[in-house]
């Protein structure tokens, strides 16, 4: 069981790294989503796997009678899922807003905050860069 989980984690991490090497911010974000799920599995596996023994205490007792699953990693994973979900939802909204405003999510073209040369600097200050907020670029141009 541990081996299966380890292989799964490995595959998910490899996939997410592949996605995160992309210049497209949206793909990078999908990579992050996968990676955070892989990490949740790591925490889960770190607490050791106990099959079919939920950590429940029988009525009247003060401690579990038999060997039960470790409840703490489950609580940690739950917290991490909730936090991760919030952050990733925010990031998705941010990527969308960036695409609408800048017209691209290609990290090579996103040089507004750190312009390459003087001309670009002037453009960004006057707010007349390549992208037009009224007419955002199509998905094809941005490489989605």
């Amino acid at each position, binding site marked *: 069981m541990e081996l299966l989980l380890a292989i799964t984690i490995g595959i998910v991490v490899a996939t997410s790294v592949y996605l995160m090497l992309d210049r497209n911010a949206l793909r*990078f974000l999908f990579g992050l989503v996968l990676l955070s799920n892989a990490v949740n599995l790591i925490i889960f596996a770190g607490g050791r796997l106990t099959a079919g023994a939920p950590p429940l205490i029988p009525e009247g007792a003060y401690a579990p009678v038999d060997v039960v699953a470790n409840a703490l990693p489950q609580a940690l994973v739950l917290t991490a899922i909730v936090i991760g979900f919030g952050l990733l939802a*925010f990031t998705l909204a941010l990527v969308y807003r960036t695409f609408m405003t800048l017209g691209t999510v290609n990290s090579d073209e996103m040089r507004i905050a750190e312009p390459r040369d003087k001309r670009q600097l002037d453009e960004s200050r006057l707010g007349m860069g390549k992208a037009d907020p009224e007419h955002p670029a199509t998905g094809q141009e941005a490489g989605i």
Partner: protein
Amino acid sequence: MNWLLVYPIVIPLMTAVVSYLFRNSRAGRWISVAGTAALLLASLLLMAEVLDRGVVAAQMSNWEAPFGITLAADLLGAVMVVITAITGMATVIYSLSDISERLERMGFHALLQILLMGVCGAFLTGDLFNLYVWFEVMLIASFGLLVLGGDRQQLDGGIKYVMLNLVSTIMFLTGIGLLYGITGTLNMADLHLAVREVQNQGLLTTIAVMFMVAFGVKAALFPLFFWLPASYHTPPVAVSAIFAGLLTKVGVYSLIRCFTLIFNQDVGFTHTLLLWLSVITMVTGVLGAAAMNDFRRILSFHIISQIGYMVLGLAIYTPLGLMGAVFYLVHHIIVKANLFFVAGVAKRIGGSTDLARLGGLYTHAPLLAFLFLIPAFSLAGFPPLSGFWAKYVVVKAALDLEMWGVAAISLAVGLLTIFSMTKIWGAAFWPDHPDGIKPRLSDLPMGDRVALMLPIIGLAALTCIIGLFPEPFVQFAERSATQLLDPTEYITTVLGVQP
């Protein structure tokens, strides 16, 4: 149960909620000011308690130490909370003038208070997973502040900031999962004992490096700093200032905490790695600053270079080195936030932060010029300002171990720091304004002038006080370093037993 440990977390939370409810009226901002003043008071009370009684700890919900969440404050934690409150206070006052009503209605003050809560929580927690949670609280608030208003530059910088910081927290979480897997605990004091019983010490060192990478991204260590110069110059100045002052320092604090309390079983490897990283960080940061032509971007690169000094103090890992790191941490937060405030005023009256479009500040705003020189010289390490003592201690610690090269490099970096400061001086203050503007402070309305200059004057005064009367501060840093290197008191207080 010591309530003093809870106040620095609860007060900003309450302030955030109330100021959000009143965000549409002018009451919201004054609630934020009052809440931050209360935070400052609470932090000073906590400091008095820690000075009086040593390490204080509180078990949340009365779950005993290794099982529940512990809040604990030693001298380092307490002083960081005090400095957070001071920086928060300065920022809130500054934002009275700097932040537009539009941003206030979007909930600027609520986000700022949540940020303060996250930072205070990170400094006070005694549990590794809880530290992760505080990091996330801090991050989500900082994301909001960074892109609030949503102009093009902000979104561009924000994306890079958000993405790279998320990678770092995921790295941190992985480290936590693996560390829990091999030790079975996440309480920091308990971990100090547990890591010594781990069979496979090599695995532990691997996890230590994982934590180093995670905190290294937060602290903007070489080669993980690229998110910082990409984003710190884009938001409103008040936001830049508190980010520059506090956020990277939470990373440095976490490095100091983890690499003194938990991961000190293989100092020869981990701390040597930190030593090299810190030296390269120093050099790249200052070279980046020398190459920039924008007031705030120069300052952003300086943050990176200064982080190098703090981590160098930790990497040297002697009482003197750690003492330097603690002293540097406190000094740097004050000075850096102040420089960003000055940049903000320069932008306000001079119309830009681009050095090519600034000028005449020395002639028309001599007070501002004077107030720029204090933190600028302090940052470069001129006596008798606070930066001199901070650098002196770190360099002395390096010399004591006969690390001649390291000491020489850190002194040379100081020289380059003053070079990039003269660049700012030579372009923004000395010559006339290229567009013929006369940047006068007196052109600002009275209320704005007070709100903008008060934090700058206050922080500059603090720099001078630390510089002129360093004795109590140095002694404090020394006691704090002793506590960090011998965590017996911390562990006894948290776990309630002799280790």
